[in-house]
């Protein structure tokens, strides 16, 4: 049953904790996802410290006061991991990360013990099957994306877009709701300053390769509204490539 107060339900037992941060004209999602599995609940990403109380409260409302059974963190940047210490303080759960073997590993950062994940590795977590794809767009070195086989959902770390203030809860499940090129471009230029060097064709090929390898029905960015349906995901990728081209053209003009 959808609880509109705490999360937006997506297909396949994926619940989007839509939490965003107001920028000057647009909003910036920093939104974890909770996935219900037969053996427990999994949170993908931990959100920003700015939203600590809200995230903890929403998770407990969704899964109970004992909290989550597992957490998966795509990389160690603060908007993705900042609440993992609070999670560790409150709940007992298994932690899976891309950065367990680094100088900023979860134990060092106060998040407790963790299991390191490798690219393309597949694991059963709480009765769901996850693979950790090689991501074509990352800012930090130790980044993995997360693919949930059960819902066919791809969680995409830092690849995202802004949204208008009236679209905070919007799920893109209709062409009329599609994210604009400008929303992608403005996010990229603020958050991923290397975008000006990217080759749009290479990005397009990388995204197509990813779609070919993984059957994706939910595109689930931390920093953006989720997109549901393979045709809409392909449209989103086309717009993504157009946004990269626009940034490159502006930088070289």
């Amino acid at each position, binding site marked *: 049953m959808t609880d509109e107060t705490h999360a937006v339900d997506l297909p396949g037992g994926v619940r989007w904790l839509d939490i965003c941060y107001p920028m*000057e004209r647009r909003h910036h999602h920093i939104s974890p996802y909770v996935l219900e599995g037969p053996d427990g609940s999994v949170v993908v990403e931990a959100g920003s410290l700015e939203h600590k109380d809200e995230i903890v409260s929403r998770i407990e409302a969704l899964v109970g006061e004992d909290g989550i059974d597992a957490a998966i963190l795509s990389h160690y940047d603060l908007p993705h991991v900042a609440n993992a210490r609070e999670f560790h303080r409150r709940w007992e759960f298994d932690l899976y990360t891309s950065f367990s073997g680094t100088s900023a590993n979860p134990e060092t950062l106060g998040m407790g013990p963790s299991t390191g994940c490798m690219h393309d590795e597949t694991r059963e977590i709480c009765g769901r099957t996850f693979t950790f794809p090689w991501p074509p767009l990352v800012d930090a070195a130790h980044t993995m994306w997360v693919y949930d086989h059960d819902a066919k959902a791809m969680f995409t770390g830092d690849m995202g877009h802004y949204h208008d203030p009236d679209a905070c809860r919007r799920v893109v499940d209709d062409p009329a709701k599609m994210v604009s090129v400008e929303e992608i471009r403005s996010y990229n230029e603020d958050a991923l300053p*290397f975008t000006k060097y990217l080759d749009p064709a290479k990005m397009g090929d990388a995204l197509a390769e990813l779609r070919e390898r993984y059957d994706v029905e939910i595109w689930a960015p931390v920093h953006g509204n989720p997109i549901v349906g393979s045709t809409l995901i392909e449209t989103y990728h086309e717009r993504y490539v157009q946004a990269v081209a626009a940034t490159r053209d502006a930088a070289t003009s």
Partner: protein
Amino acid sequence: MYTHMARKIGPDIYQIQQCIDKPVMTDAMRDDPPEWFDGDRLVHVCNNAYLIAGERTLLYDTVSPGAREQLMDALDELLGGDSLDYVVPSHPEAPHAGNANALLQRYPDATLLSSAYGRGEELYYLDQGRKVEAGETLDLGGYTVEFLEATFPDTAFHIWLKERTSNALFTADWMGSPHLEGECLLFSDELETPLSPEQILEFQARALRWLQYCDPEPVKAAIDDLIEAHDPEIICPGHGTVIREDAVEHLNDMRDVVDMILTGDRLAELK
């Protein structure tokens, strides 16, 4: 993990290095070992912090929280009871900024200076300091720091800097390189095997993963611009060996590194 005490680079600029064993990376290299590799020694990747010690002192980058105690010990020794005046994270990732808050608590008179290039500084705890933009300078008394736009960034809130007296360029994630066990804190001119594009590739392809999908022409043009604008004598990367000799030649070598990344396979993780 090893943290080494500081080493003086030449002028009153000190490198503080945190080294990390990389067993997965070491094993991956055994199948097709590069010239600089020695299978009997572990590969290390490092995080560097740099202290510029004029009449006032500035620390560029902070190494990661795992080496907090060693960083504080090194600073105690280098500062000799004086305070730290400025803390400048090159960008808000844990290996670069992870001890910034702890430093501000230990040195309450210190000022946090962070890049003005990004939005949502509260999300990265950067709202407690002062923003700096490219072109601003800071007189440290005997040394002058110029803040530069990060030519090759990964995240938002990225800033590079140049120290004008020594003509040292501080490049954060650009031009890092792994080294071997036993080579910690050595300069490039002291390595057994001269620092090569192949060695830099091993770090660069992993650290700036976007290079795999870049258009090489604007990247190479930016390398040209960097050389023309700064003609550095010393290069101080955030994750590698300090280059004291032939700095411009090594900068030019980065063109080859970019080509190798674009034509090579993806490399194993940095584990």
